[in-house]
């Protein structure tokens, strides 16, 4: 302890000041308290009754979604919603009765909503969204004396082109309880992008809600506006999609279930993203009814599924491009290597057929690709083995998501021996390598992955991230974000070997024996590859039945991938017709029409 201490006399006189200061400051608080609680008591008491000062949301207008040339995909329109403030309801019976008459809803449902317990106090309850003009005029005319009823105006989504690009655009809906827990800055009843582009760009599209502080009278009628904050509209999004090409693709698909997608191989921009069957996103704008929802989810062809990124299919012969690349790069074949095809290839105890029963005779790589000789690729696959083959498949971006900015993208499956041991508990059989070489066995991929493969072959070997957004602009047309091409990887193939394959892909359509010879187009050459993916294994050695002789679900999927022009490609296309039969006849003509449309649009534009 320190002993050299003096009593701190020096502070004594200063204490007086601090005591006075403390008392004065407390006095200020007292005066303020007196002002609020005594002088202004009546005013505040009135305001506190029935919560007279309320906040009303003014929802922001969601940003528009445009195509690459600024044509509107998704817009907004005003809508009227019938709401009820339960705290203001004095005659519940009367209110539910009138509302059920005007809106044609069961009164029990309305009463249940209004009297629900798990609701924050003074929170508006939505009785019906997007009411019709007739309902609005009924409510406005006869609903004036119904205390608690409120009509709110809110912008909702409008789709000038109906179903066009629905799976890509996605839809919006009221935020659900789960999302509410995860997301900050959202309140009950807010609108939120549920999937597709609406989901990904939610942050830009949403805007900032405004609000009004209003004073209401004892029965909830708005007396005056105390304060107002204007909402800030969301930002506008420009997609890479070309509206004309998109519509054309959807028209080409018609009633057929399938996918048509087009991409600019130099940038990775997706030009068309067609999916059939799809849905009318407008159904969701005003709140979808249970019945309509049931219909959508129980539809056998799954219209809500975005096949381009969520549908998984075996690639069939299109995969021969990968097998060829692997064979050349690994040196198990050269472009000149000739292998013989007699229509059937025996491996182990089994015979593996070529699609052409009579066989192709002596085949080199060029003919193997143009005529899609299965037996040629059986032998390449056998020489490669499963590990090398699947390594190349992964090198081409298969078995993992492309990274497109959409939710729910599937990664597909590139089988390996290890995978099979782990998942199925069985060893890999060499015969399965033979199937894998022609894109069968366990391999699964999405149409977008295949589009990415053909696009990277078109651009000389660069795997690009598929882009669907060009830029985001605010309402004053100021560019906020500009999306740039993004390289993911390089294909594991040399330029020389790539040229060999590219030459053969032109032969697919140009040669008289090419499997895609049906798709020639005057004025421009098309490089492509057909694929016919078996859905079920056919036993026996007999003639393979024609598609129309089989039940729909057992028919082959028809593939065609293409790009044009071959020397300086501007467009890459993938076509998948589910259970469409032969790629060369069912899918290839659609790809040709897409390319034709693209070229005519380009000519018209410039």
């Amino acid at each position, binding site marked *: *302890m320190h002993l050299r201490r003096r009593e*701190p006399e020096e502070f004594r006189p200063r204490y007086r000041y601090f005591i006075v200061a*403390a008392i004065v400051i407390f006095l200020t608080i007292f005066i303020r308290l007196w002002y609020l609680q005594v002088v202004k008591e009546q005013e505040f008491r009135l305001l*506190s009754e029935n919560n007279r000062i309320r*906040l009303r949301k003014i929802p922001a207008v969601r940003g528009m979604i445009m195509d690459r040339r600024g044509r509107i995909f998704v817009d907004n329109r005003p809508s009227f919603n019938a709401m009820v403030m339960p705290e203001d309801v004095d005659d519940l019976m009367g209110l539910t009765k009138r509302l059920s008459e005007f809106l044609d809803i069961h009164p029990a449902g309305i009463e249940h909503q209004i009297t629900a317990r798990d609701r924050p106090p003074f929170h508006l309850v939505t009785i019906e969204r997007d009411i019709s003009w007739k309902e609005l005029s009924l409510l406005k005319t006869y609903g004036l004396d119904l205390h608690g009823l409120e009509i709110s105006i809110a912008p909702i989504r409008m789709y000038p082109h109906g179903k066009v690009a629905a799976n890509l655009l996605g839809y919006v809906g009221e935020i659900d309880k789960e999302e509410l827990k995860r997301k900050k800055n959202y309140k009950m009843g807010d609108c939120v992008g549920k999937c597709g582009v609406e989901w990904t760009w939610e942050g830009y599209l949403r805007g900032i809600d405004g609000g009004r502080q209003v004073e209401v009278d004892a029965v909830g009628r708005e007396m005056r506006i105390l304060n107002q904050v204007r909402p800030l509209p969301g930002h506008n999004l420009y997609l890479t999609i070309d509206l004309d090409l998109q519509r054309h693709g959807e028209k080409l698909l018609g009633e057929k279930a399938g996918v048509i997608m087009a991409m600019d191989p130099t940038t990775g921009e997706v030009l068309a993203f067609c999916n059939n069957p799809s849905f009318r996103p407008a159904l969701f704008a005003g709140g979808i009814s249970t019945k309509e929802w049931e219909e959508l989810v129980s539809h056998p062809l799954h219209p809500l599924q975005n096949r381009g990124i969520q549908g998984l299919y075996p690639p069939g012969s299109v995969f021969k491009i990968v097998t060829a690349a692997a064979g050349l790069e690994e040196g198990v074949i050269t472009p000149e290597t000739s292998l013989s095809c007699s229509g059937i290839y025996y491996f182990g105890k089994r015979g593996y057929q070529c699609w052409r029963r009579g066989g192709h005779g002596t085949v080199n790589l060029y003919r193997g690709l143009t005529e899609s000789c299965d037996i040629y690729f059986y032998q390449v696959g056998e020489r490669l083995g499963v590990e090398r083959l699947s390594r190349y498949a992964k090198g081409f971006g298969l078995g993992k998501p492309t990274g497109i900015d959409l939710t729910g993208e599937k990664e597909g499956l590139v089988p390996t021996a290890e995978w099979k041991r782990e998942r199925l508990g069985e060893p890999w059989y060499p015969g399965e390598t033979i199937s894998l070489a022609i894109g069968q066995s366990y391999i699964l991929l999405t149409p977008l992955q295949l589009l990415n493969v053909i696009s990277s072959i078109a651009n000389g070997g660069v795997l690009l991230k598929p882009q669907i957004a060009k830029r985001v602009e605010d309402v004053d047309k100021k560019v906020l974000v500009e999306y740039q091409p993004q390289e993911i990887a390089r294909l594991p193939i040399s330029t020389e070997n790539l040229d060999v394959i590219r030459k053969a892909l032109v032969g697919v359509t140009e040669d008289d024996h090419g499997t895609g010879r049906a798709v020639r187009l005057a004025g421009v050459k098309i490089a492509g590859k057909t694929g016919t993916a078996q859905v079920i294994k056919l036993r026996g050695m007999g003639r393979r039945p024609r598609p129309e002789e089989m039940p729909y679900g057992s028919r082959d999927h028809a593939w065609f991938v293409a790009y044009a022009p071959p020397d300086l490609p501007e467009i890459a296309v993938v076509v998948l017709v589910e259970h469409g039969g032969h790629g060369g006849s069912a899918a290839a003509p659609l790809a040709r029409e897409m390319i034709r449309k693209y070229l005519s649009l380009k000519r018209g534009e410039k």
Partner: protein
Amino acid sequence: MIDRKSWAQLDGKLIILTLVLMTIGIVNLYSATINLPGGEFPFYQRQLFWLGIGVFFGLLVFLADYRYYEEFAYPIYLLALLSIVSVLIYGIVVGGAQRWIRIGFFNLQPSELMKIALILALARHFARYEMREGYGLRDLIIPAVITLLPTLLIAKQPDLGTALVLVFILLSIVMFVKIRFRSLLILLTVVILATPFFWVALKDYQRSRILTFLNPDMDPLGAGYHIIQSKIAVGSGGVWGKGYLHGTQCKLQFLPEHHTDFVFAVLGEEWGFIGCGVVLALYLALILWGLNIGMKAKDRFGTILAFGVTAMIFWHVIINVGMVLGIMPIVGLPLPFLSYGGSSAVVHLMGIGLLLNVRARRHIF
């Protein structure tokens, strides 16, 4: 020195004042949180538990002679500083702010403990470096560094309220130990000039809160709405209040923090001007008594320590009540003994423990 005599020296007045405020706090908290889902235990029970912990720590602080704290003031300060740094690194984020660190079963808020640690450090510094003719600017560099280091770290969490209190504690102590008049003028000028830079460093929500305070029309949907609802709650209480458990405004969740930072609004609505007046008078009595304890202390350290603790309680009360009544910006500070919250209860009861300590040892020399 821990001895039997110190128990006999326990200051009955201070203890009774504190107990009364704590009781009012629990009673009020019961009403404030009656509609709040509180998990396993209701809020008032949890707060009772915290007060129990606080009383334990307060007595612990009381037992050892405060002159030991002078010896260990700097190590204690460094420890607190370290825990603040660790909060920035390991802390858990609650409501967008990183203020808490999890220790065993409860979340500790080291920035609260820093208040006590800073008072100890400043008291030691000014006790050892005596300046009869008043401190000049150069003498204030070390105290300023001692204060600003934790202040900036805490402001970064962000916890503007606590950061503000630390600065206010420093300023109060500096005024108390006597600053030269010329230095005071220079200091004021610097503060005024530095304000714009400080402004830039604030987070968006902090800026909007201050702006809203200056002009409540600016953000009528967020903080502006809170101020208005808080004023309606207090004002509608009138002279006599709406009666215990009969408040409506606060419980309807218009005030999201009505059991923590806005708990005074609940009191105002239910107990009216009379109730608020009594509580404020109790706070004033506590503060005047705290000043008295400082005045009677036997050494410089004890005097400055008691003054610092009193200043801490004073600023909490003034800023919090001022905020609820709409005459101070919303900075998020608890009201001592009334607001729900463990760290605040523990720290303020430790403060009371220090006051008792200084009081009890005023004759020992």
